[in-house]
């Protein structure tokens, strides 16, 4: 059965953008470790993490394909909503200036300084460098794995578009990292997180509703409608939050 593009397109976009954000964050750590303690162990840790993540997607993706879909949709929708609404809340608060933005340059400097304090690396495999890049790759990649699996669990046939989206972002960030050898600080991470949060919330709401047995008005076309609704409400919340935060800061200053 062909996959409707109204599901395949947004699922590929969501996993691409989520993977882009997480890969940029992991790249910062890999670069910091590589420049301070050597590239061999840094890249070995990163590659081991990526292999483990790939294995998780393959094994869990196959397992999810065998589970009856309708019984699973409500749980997948609920998990996607918990995950996506957390991302969207944070993106709104960061856009409003309530929470600090992610600063890749600052993180790079902090990581480099911390690694230098551990002394120089010896010959052979540097366990510290391996462990730091392995852990960073796993932590950042776990979110991407969750998104890919959750999106593909919501509807049959979405594992490939979601995986391809994530893989494309990984290749893009790895190529850019290899070319510039600097953290990709200009990537608008919060805007990307905003968009991913909106898409995940739209998917989560749609599948939770379907799992409850409700028929969405417009059927599959309600996914873009839900995304537009989440985007509009979140975008309108940003200036509102900014006003409230500055009023609160004024009260505290008095």
């Amino acid at each position, binding site marked *: 059965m062909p996959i409707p593009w109204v599901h395949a397109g947004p699922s590929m976009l969501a996993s691409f953008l989520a993977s882009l954000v997480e890969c940029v964050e992991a790249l910062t750590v890999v670069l910091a470790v590589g420049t301070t303690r050597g590239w061999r162990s840094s890249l070995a840790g990163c590659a081991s993490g990526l292999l483990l993540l790939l294995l998780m997607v393959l094994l869990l993706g196959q397992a999810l394909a065998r589970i009856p879909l309708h019984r699973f949709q409500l749980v997948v929708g*609920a998990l996607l*909503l918990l995950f996506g609404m957390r991302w*969207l809340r944070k993106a709104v608060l960061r856009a409003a200036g309530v929470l600090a933005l992610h600063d890749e340059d600052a993180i790079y400097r902090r990581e480099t300084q911390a690694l230098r304090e551990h002394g120089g690396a010896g010959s052979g495999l540097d366990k510290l460098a391996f462990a730091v890049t392995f852990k960073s790759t796993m932590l950042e990649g*776990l979110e991407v794995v969750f998104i890919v699996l959750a999106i593909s669990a919501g509807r049959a046939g979405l594992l490939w578009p979601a995986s391809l989206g994530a893989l494309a972002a990984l290749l893009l960030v790895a190529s850019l990292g290899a070319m510039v050898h600097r953290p990709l600080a200009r990537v608008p991470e919060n805007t990307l997180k905003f968009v991913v949060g909106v898409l995940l919330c739209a998917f989560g*709401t749609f599948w939770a509703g379907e799992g409850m047995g409700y028929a969405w008005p417009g059927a599959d076309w309600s996914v873009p409608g839900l995304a537009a609704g989440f985007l509009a409400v979140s975008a309108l919340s940003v200036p509102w939050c900014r006003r409230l935060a500055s009023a609160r800061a004024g009260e505290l200053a008095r």
Partner: protein
Amino acid sequence: MSWLRTALVELWGLFVEDGRYALAIVVWLLLAWLALPLLDLGSGWNAVILAAGLLAILVESVLRRARR
């Protein structure tokens, strides 16, 4: 076993950052699933009310955090 504890904490953190926010989402999903059909509004309206409730939870949570 510290690695297992770390892994579980990380896994929990993927879904829950603000406990009250996460709880509100779960409670609303349960209400929308179990209580909305009792109102007999129709399947389409139930779906719309489900989405509206989630949007309201998001707005309440960000405004509450901004006021703090």
